[in-house]
């Protein structure tokens, strides 16, 4: 779960990490109130959960309260990468001497957390890594002993700092590590963390992504996610509540299958035959009929879907349950779109019998099914 910049910054502030003074506004009069309490000039920043906000014009710099109001209005009327801006964060603009990067991510090979720092910041870390690989400082965090003050100081030293600045920057890095651990962050970064002209530091932007699997330890965020405030669509929320994995794509072939790898491979095969998948939907293992019906409802709520491919390889999922779910959905929500079904594995015969008695044809090979559904999406089906 991604947190908004303003949320991330308020958490950082609680841990003693300096952040610019600021406030949140969802309309122009709030913008006035917020700006009136701050010292100009201001940065007015659209609160959206997509990367590349700056490049898309989502950050405006202004000199007066009136201009802050105008900037707020402009941003609130904007879409950034198809996401409507619903709030802005107005903060005091910093006098930046230097932009730096510090973040903590996971290292799959070493099965631990990895601290990454750079004396160049402000752009995506991959970009920094490509453009100035020598400036990247990496420290693998010992999973049993954690990240300590001396680690933080060493990173600050490698970034070129000495004296009070070294200690201050180290304290900030250590603070960020504690935020990351306490909030179960799978990624936490200050990009940039800036050196101000007075020699102090502040987190000018902050990003926290909470590990979805740890949300049971953070019920307030889980609740917010399910209430639609985490940037999820209605379909994504419904999928999440029903323990289905759903990702909306922009094609016209709806896809449902069991198992993440198999569904991904199904999308790839559709693409191989020059079709365009409308979504990814994994029903998981052992799904009962009702869950299959919910999956169908979610996929078919996308008006772009012209045809549907259901690809199930039954292991713990039973083909007869899948067949019943398909018929149940057909009855309840009226599936008018053509469906191509591939069904093999546990209770395959029973599943096929149920479907063929209802006039639904079942295929055996995944490639054959993918080819067929692509054909239908392009030229119409029966």
């Amino acid at each position, binding site marked *: 779960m991604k947190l908004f910049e303003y949320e991330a910054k308020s958490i950082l502030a609680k841990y003693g990490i300096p952040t610019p003074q600021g406030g949140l506004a969802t309309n122009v009069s709030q913008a006035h109130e917020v700006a009136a309490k701050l010292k100009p000039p201001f940065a007015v920043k659209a609160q959206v959960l997509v*990367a590349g906000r700056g490049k898309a014009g989502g950050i405006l710099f202004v000199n007066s309260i009136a201009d802050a109001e105008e900037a707020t209005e402009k941003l609130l009327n904007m879409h950034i990468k198809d996401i409507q801006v619903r709030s802005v964060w107005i903060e005091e603009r910093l006098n930046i001497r230097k932009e730096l990067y510090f973040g903590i991510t*996971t290292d*799959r*090979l070493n*099965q*631990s*957390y990895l601290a990454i720092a750079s004396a160049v910041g402000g752009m*995506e*870390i*991959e970009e920094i890594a490509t453009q100035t690989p020598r400036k990247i400082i990496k420290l693998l965090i010992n*999973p*049993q002993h954690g990240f300590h003050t001396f680690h933080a100081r060493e990173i600050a030293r490698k970034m070129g700092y000495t004296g009070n600045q070294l200690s201050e920057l180290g304290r900030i890095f250590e603070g960020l590590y504690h935020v990351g*651990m306490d909030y*179960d962050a*799978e*990624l936490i970064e200050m990009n940039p963390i800036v050196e101000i002209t007075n020699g102090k530091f502040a987190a000018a932007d902050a990003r926290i992504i909470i*590990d*979805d*699997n*740890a949300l*049971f*330890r953070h019920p307030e965020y889980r609740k917010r996610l399910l209430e639609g405030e985490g940037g999820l669509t209605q379909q994504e929320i419904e999928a999440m509540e029903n323990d289905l*994995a759903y*990702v909306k*794509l922009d094609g016209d072939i709806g896809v449902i*299958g*069991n*198992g*993440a*790898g*198999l*569904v*991904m*491979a199904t*999308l*790839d*095969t*559709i*693409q*191989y035959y020059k079709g365009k*998948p409308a979504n*990814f939907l*994994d029903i998981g*293992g052992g799904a009962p009929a009702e869950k299959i019906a919910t999956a169908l409802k979610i996929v078919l709520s996308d008006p772009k879907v012209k045809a549907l491919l259901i690809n199930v*390889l*039954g*292991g*713990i999922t039973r083909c007869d349950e899948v067949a019943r779910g398909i018929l149940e959905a057909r009855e309840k929500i009226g599936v008018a779109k053509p469906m191509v079904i591939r069904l*093999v*594995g*546990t209770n395959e015969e029973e599943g096929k019998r149920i479907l063929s008695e209802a006039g639904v044809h079942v295929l055996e*090979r*995944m*490639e054959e099914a993918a080819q067929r559904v692509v054909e239908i999406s392009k030229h119409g089906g029966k």
Partner: protein
Amino acid sequence: MGIIIDKNTRAIVQGITGAQGSFHTKLMQEYGTKIVAGTSPGKGGGQIHGVPVYDTVEEAQKKHSANASIIFVPAPFASDAALEALENGIKTVVIITEHIPIKDAISVMAYAKELDVTIIGPNTPGIITPGENKLGIMPAHIFKPGSIGMVSRSGTLTYEIAASLSAKDLGQSTCLGLGGDPITGLNFIDSLKLFENDPQTKAVVLIGEIGGNLEELAADYIAKEKYLKPVVAFIAGRSAPPGKRMGHAGAIIIGKAGTAETKIERFRDANVKVAEKPSDVAELLSKLL
């Protein structure tokens, strides 16, 4: 032969009284796996499919000295179960549970490293040596004994490819699911090493997917170490968009990192054949053997 599990494997099932734990205990027994005990805190004393149930692993170990464990405990309690297995001398731990937090997985892996324990998973279908035994939830009838080693990050995709191999009489030595999470125990390189040393294995099928860089590192390992056995790879997620988690917690492209293209390219650079579609794996293998 095969890797990691064999006839001497004596396993306990942690979470044996749950629906999944109990169901798969029966299937594993029927396949020939020695399940010597089960645990379920607060429910010790009875039996499930003839297997004695204990409250704790320590108690089970005193009477049965198992050397492996398979975990079906729900995610919030799964890392505790894994640590319990580790602390009680279990040397192979298969964690079936999905949705374990990264922080918990990291602490389990660190302790496993210290104690030199093999962890498979989390979020894995487990491991099967066809015709001998299995510690996992995979439908056994799909697999056939033979000489192909399989290692994968995905369950049903492994079944899909294993079924197409079995249909062409390309049986398997051992099939191993690494798990769909970002932090797992065994990785591709570990598995390649094990298969290289297994006399039964003549070739390896590696099934990867988007996210992380472990496929890339495996490709580099194959090239650098002049890996002795032929490898065929399949990578799922060519059509996956960046920034979206494709079902598995670990299947996500971040920025430009972890794409299928990069992985496929690295395998091709290492002279590893990469299948375009799942069914192509069997054909590519037949040509190499």
